[in-house]
């Protein structure tokens, strides 16, 4: 242990989220996890976008940058390219990450930039007071969709797996233990880690995740993924995810021989993708946990290392030689 405490990671800024906001729970979990990771606050950076979630960075007593809307992954990528010695976390919302920031997100994942990207998914625009987000379900009535949203939502995990994410996970604001475990796994991943956090917005989208958080319903709807374990759920694991003869993954009996065994380290993301697509919205049984965690080259880090190396070994005369490279001629005075 490191002797670090939660307080070492808590800034003096008064938290300004609405009472009951799920963001508080995430903040508590992250501040609680940090000391365990054994990284001193001054080596940790939180880069956030704009949104309620984005305020997160101000509450961590680490280095932090509250960027502009949707661009946090780009800002963080530049930081990672310049510095291989930091633990860099990106805090973003469903609108910040998937609407305006979609391109930077998929490219940061494609590049496997060593960032821990936490997406607070409340399926709504909180900060701007209640417009539809790319994860709002079809038909949802919001300020910007008074007659109901007519577009299908993204399935964030399906999207990031399609983009080649080497680490993809989902957890829930209300489950501190599960969230902490998932965040720890993300922290330990070598490359880019994407974590979708179902986060309740009591003001503009209250209860969006009730099926997964409400005591009664949760046991029937949460499908916990454990690497190497058969995918079972229900009070007595009586349900399970099984592979139908035609290859599809469907919910079946917990003791079905065709039950799927979860393999998070599998190179082929197809099964993780299928698990992600089990439910497009958390109203149906929904898988949570680490969907994928595979080792891949971390290009930017490697290049970053080369960079440091090159700087280190720069001869005094290097600049002079560079300026004089190629054909030169001298005019006598």
């Amino acid at each position, binding site marked *: 242990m490191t002797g670090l405490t939660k307080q070492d990671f808590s800034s003096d800024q008064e938290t300004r989220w609405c009472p009951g906001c799920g963001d508080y729970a995430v903040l508590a979990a992250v501040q609680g996890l940090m000391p365990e990771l054994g990284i001193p606050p001054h080596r940790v950076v939180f880069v956030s976008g704009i949104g309620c979630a984005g305020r997160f960075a101000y509450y961590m007593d680490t280095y932090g940058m509250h960027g502009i809307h949707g661009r946090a992954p780009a800002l963080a990528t530049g930081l990672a*390219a310049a510095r291989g010695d930091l633990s860099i976390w990106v805090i973003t919302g469903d609108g910040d990450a998937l609407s305006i920031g979609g391109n930077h997100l998929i490219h940061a994942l494609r590049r496997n930039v060593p960032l821990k990207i936490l997406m607070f998914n409340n399926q709504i625009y909180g900060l701007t007071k209640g417009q539809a987000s790319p994860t709002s379900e079809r038909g949802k009535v919001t300020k910007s969709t008074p007659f109901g949203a007519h577009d299908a939502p993204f399935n964030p995990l399906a999207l990031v797996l399609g983009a080649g994410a080497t680490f993809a996970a989902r957890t829930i604001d209300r489950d501190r233990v599960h969230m902490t475990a998932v965040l720890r796994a993300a922290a330990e991943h070598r490359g880019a880690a994407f974590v979708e956090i179902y986060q309740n917005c009591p003001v503009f989208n209250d209860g969006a995740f009730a099926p997964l958080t409400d005591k009664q319903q949760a046991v029937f709807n949460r499908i916990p993924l454990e690497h190497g374990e058969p995918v079972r759920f229900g009070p007595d694991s009586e349900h399970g995810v099984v592979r139908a003869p035609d290859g599809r993954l469907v919910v079946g009996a917990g003791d079905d021989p065709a039950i799927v065994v979860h393999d998070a380290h599998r190179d082929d993301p197809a099964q993780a993708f299928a698990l992600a697509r089990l439910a497009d919205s958390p109203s149906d049984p929904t898988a949570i946990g680490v969907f994928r965690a595979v080792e891949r080259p971390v290009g930017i880090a490697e290049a970053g290392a080369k960079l440091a190396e090159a700087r280190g070994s720069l001869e005094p005369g290097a600049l002079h030689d560079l300026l004089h490279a190629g054909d030169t001629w001298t005019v006598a005075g």
Partner: protein
Amino acid sequence: MRVQVKERRRVIVRFAGDSGDGMQLAGSRFMDATAEHGNDFATLPSFPAEIRAPAGTLAGVSAFQIHFAAQDILTPGDEPDVLVAMNPAALRSELGALARRGTVIANEDAFTKRNLEKAGYDANPLEDGSLDGFHLIRIPMTSLTARATEAMEHVSTRDAGRAKNLFALGVVSWLYDRPTAPTERWIRAKFADKPGPLEANLAAFRAGWNFGETSELVDVQYRVDPATDVPAGTYRNVNGTTATALGLIAASVRSGLPLVLASYPITPASELLHELARHQDMGVRTIQAEDEIAAAGMALGAAFGGALGVTATSGPGLDLKTETIGLAVALELPLVVIDVQRAGPSTGMPTKTEQSDLLAALHGRHGESPLPVIAASTPGQCFEAAYEAARIAVTYRTPVILLSDLFLANSSEPWLIPDAGALPPIDPAFAQPGEPFSPYARDEKGARPWAIPGTPGLTHRIGGLETEDVTGDISYDGANHARMTAIRAAKIAGITADLPRLEVDADPGAELLVLGWGSSRGAIRAAARRVRANGHAVATAHLHHLHPLPFDLGEVLHRFERVLVPEMNSGQFASVLRARFLVDVESYGAMEGRPLYAAELERELEERL
């Protein structure tokens, strides 16, 4: 027969042919020989527009112009004295520029019916007398090259076919008595392991040279003596792109900050990305971002981490970086944004030059977000300009926009290599552990501390919301906002104190000041030289800092009766001066996608004298 030899002070040659004809190569070789010969020179390549056009068409013409002289010269020149035309399309598209009674050296083999049609000629211009006003030299270069290389064991007909540019080079090299050694050296090195091309190119080059010497077609040889009035020192040839890259690397090495360039490819700025990507060994890190927004964001993120963050682009990309540059203004972090201007609006003419992004650089951000703007003036000066941009960015913790343009990026000239050790210092002055620290406290220059992640005890948060003076906490207080707005503006305005007074080159009694910025420098000085030769008094001055402006500029403007600002736009900088100094500045704007010509400026000046 004995050829007569004539003297010339300055000569302009333009090599023109199809994109496939290797004109850039021929031109570059001629340039190196010219450098070795000791002339001063300036060159300007011109490439076909974006997409490869079908061979032989006007759209496919590629050209390389070189201006060389026995004295120091300032531009690649307006009207060529000699046009080398490898095919009808080249002749047709370039002839317009040729000086009256200029020389045309044409590869007559290429003037076939098919090629003439492709170029849109009904009749063969080599025969229909349409070139009577010029001195026409017809040479069957293709066949002579073939003959020169036939029976060489390694040389394929393909090799021979592709060597005719070296034949042309040989002819022109003889015509201006260039040393042959550098070219032969180059051929040997380049094709060391390709015997076919090696023999073909050598043979073609020599054949061309000998043709000049022996053929009656070419009856004069010109001598252009080495330039004697150039400052002493070691020179190399650079274009604006290379000079910019070297300037950035120099700033990186001198400041001890690793250089991180994040860019998204765009013509003509891509070249800088390519150039810097090769210098990993100097601790340069380049990232090809997914778009310009990300590129600016990555450079800014790298700056937060303590690197020299740079992003380079052209007009459309500058538009996209706007919001992120505004964030850098609020964060007060060093960031160098390079805009290699091209002709707009929108996609415009990506392969043509212009200076029309100035107002966008000065004002193209919402809110009050002032930042320094610097403009490079010559290919070689790009080194200094890039270095200065980095120095200001780091010293003042601010984004800086460096304006270059397509002409500067591609044009080459001899460059007096500076002494690496004598470059002005750049001190990152990172905040140190233990020191008292507030993120938005300020030093005497108004700069805030640069406390980089990894520094124990200095954890802090910054962001784009308005910040409280000194503490850097979020603040929605009106009075604080007014104060911070004033502080940001004063910091930038204060840079003036760092700037040298404006150099004015004024004849006694000069009433007209010609004030330039950016790549018009050479043309303005050349024009002034000419009107002075005509006996007029005139003054010139050139600005490298466009914001803030040199402290004595207002006083300088008021010293003259008239002020003329020539620029490749509709008068953008003129309007800046008018607003600032209420001086009735006149503007000469040329917007034809080409650099300003000394000749047109001479005309403009004469009119005003």
